[in-house]
């Protein structure tokens, strides 16, 4: 039985005050808060098990290695990857994307085409631009409509035998749109193109099934799903991970080193040079345990209820416009007040204890599309309440009064 008041007790930070007001944390699309269960795992690791992994023969090293590798298996099971070594532990989504972009530098030839959706985060645009600069590849954009939905008929037209790669986020960070990735993947495969799906915003809301999706690459950041910052995953199909060259050189990723030649380690270590974020990886696993114990179906249902309530309440405010009104979206509301800069609203909201994001949300092309400088973005998590939605609505009304 989903009980938000019980769940809130797991998050110590939700008790704090900001500017003398109870914190209303609505910036979950940027980072989620961390439950005590995950904090305990982090503390316990440093109190009991801290050691470098994979090479030591002593007990601590073996314990830490086991915990780290168990976390990898947990992540594998959660995302239903066929094999644990298809899960590369990275520093997060941006790192994951860069591994793939760097690897494809060796595979893309001049004139090859790369498709990217119009609603990408900068971290899923810039690496591909850099890749195209290096290789002579051509970056093409799948456009979207006013509601913030991809124009799939244009996607069909863009796909051709020159298309080598398609990149798209599962869910847009700025608009909350859930993209039809099943269709995107299937159609890309029909012309022989590989697909990378950025799952950073999706992982907190839905469980993506790697085998069912038949996706080639999928990326996740742990800090968006109640885990710590600085750790995430790159899922890659085994065949692709074998094809891509390693990203960084260093310890851990080698099999044999002489000054004449180095042979690389097998998967996943080939892509995990250096001492990894061991504690982070273990806590990533613990975060998935925490969310699964609540249950993703219950989480999705509750967040949907919050989204509907917040949308209704916000739209009651005169002059408020919501950007991103796709039929299929998650609990993210990007909005502006007529004639008021989002930065002004955000500054006053902060004074009232309400944490939202303002600005272009690292997705400038979307802001250019709507011809706006940015938006105020409230993003809801399963630990938010309708009372907090009301606090947001009151704060927006108060800010508007001050700023008009």
């Amino acid at each position: 039985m989903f009980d938000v008041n019980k769940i809130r007790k797991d998050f110590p930070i939700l008790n704090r005050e900001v500017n003398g007001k109870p914190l209303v944390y609505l910036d979950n699309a940027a980072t989620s808060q961390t439950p005590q269960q995950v904090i305990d795992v982090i503390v316990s690791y440093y109190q009991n098990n801290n050691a470098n992994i994979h090479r030591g023969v002593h007990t601590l090293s073996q314990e830490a290695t086991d915990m780290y590798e168990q976390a990898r298996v947990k992540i594998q099971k959660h995302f239903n990857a066929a094999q644990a070594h298809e899960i590369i532990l990275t520093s997060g989504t941006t790192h994951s994307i860069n591994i793939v972009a760097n690897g494809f530098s060796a595979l893309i030839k001049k004139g090859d085409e790369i498709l990217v959706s119009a609603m990408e985060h900068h971290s899923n645009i810039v690496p591909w631009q850099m890749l195209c600069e290096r290789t002579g590849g051509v970056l093409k954009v799948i456009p979207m409509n006013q509601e913030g939905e991809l124009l799939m008929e244009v996607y069909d037209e863009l796909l051709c035998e020159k298309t080598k790669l398609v990149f798209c986020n599962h869910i847009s960070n700025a608009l909350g749109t859930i993209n039809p990735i099943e269709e995107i993947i299937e159609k890309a495969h029909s012309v022989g193109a590989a697909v990378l799906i950025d799952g950073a915003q999706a992982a907190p809301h839905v469980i993506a099934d790697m085998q069912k999706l038949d996706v080639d690459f999928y990326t996740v950041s742990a800090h968006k799903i109640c885990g710590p910052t600085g750790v995430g995953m790159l899922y890659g199909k085994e065949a692709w991970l074998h094809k891509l060259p390693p990203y960084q050189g260093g310890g851990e990723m080698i099999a044999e080193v002489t000054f004449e030649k180095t042979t690389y380690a097998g998967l996943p270590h080939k892509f995990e040079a250096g001492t990894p974020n061991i504690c982070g990886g273990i806590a990533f696993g613990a975060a998935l345990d925490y969310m699964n114990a609540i249950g993703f179906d219950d989480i999705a249902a509750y967040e949907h209820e919050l989204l509907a309530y917040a949308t209704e309440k916000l739209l009651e405010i005169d002059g408020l416009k919501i950007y991103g009104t796709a039929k299929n979206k998650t609990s993210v509301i990007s909005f502006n007040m007529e004639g008021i800069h989002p930065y002004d609203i955000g500054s006053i909201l902060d004074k009232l204890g309400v944490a939202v994001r303002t600005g272009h949300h690292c997705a400038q092309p979307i802001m250019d599309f709507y011809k706006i400088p940015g938006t105020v973005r409230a993003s809801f998590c399963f630990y938010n309440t309708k009372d907090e939605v009301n606090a947001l609505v009151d704060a927006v009304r108060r800010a508007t009064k001050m700023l008009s």
Partner: protein
Amino acid sequence: MHIQKIQKEIVDEFAMFEDWMQRYEYMIDLGKSLPLIDAEYKTDDNIIKGCQSKVWVHAELKENKLVFTADSDAIITKGIIAILIRAFSNQSPADIIEANTDFIDEIGLKEHLSLTRANGLVSMIKQLKLYAVGYQTQLN
């Protein structure tokens, strides 16, 4: 009036307010009295990078003193820049280069000094000082 004295005056004014709301309301009012930049200078070249809102600043040397005009698309930002300009405009480039900016902290606008990329107070101060350095070189 000397920069330090103007800054003291601003600090005293802000000290009269009891809470943040009054301070912000005053700042918003100050923003409305900002000496506006001429349309011809409101170009991309004069935009200060590092602000979430757009800020344009122009500087002109009049009788060896630097006169600033500015604009922004956000009201609170306009208020902040109005406060800065009040302290720094009509001063000699040398005095502007020398001036410290502790008064920002003292008037309770510390949050605007943080290094988040959301706000550009640090960039604004840097830009005003850069203008001063530029004109100082001319004067020499």
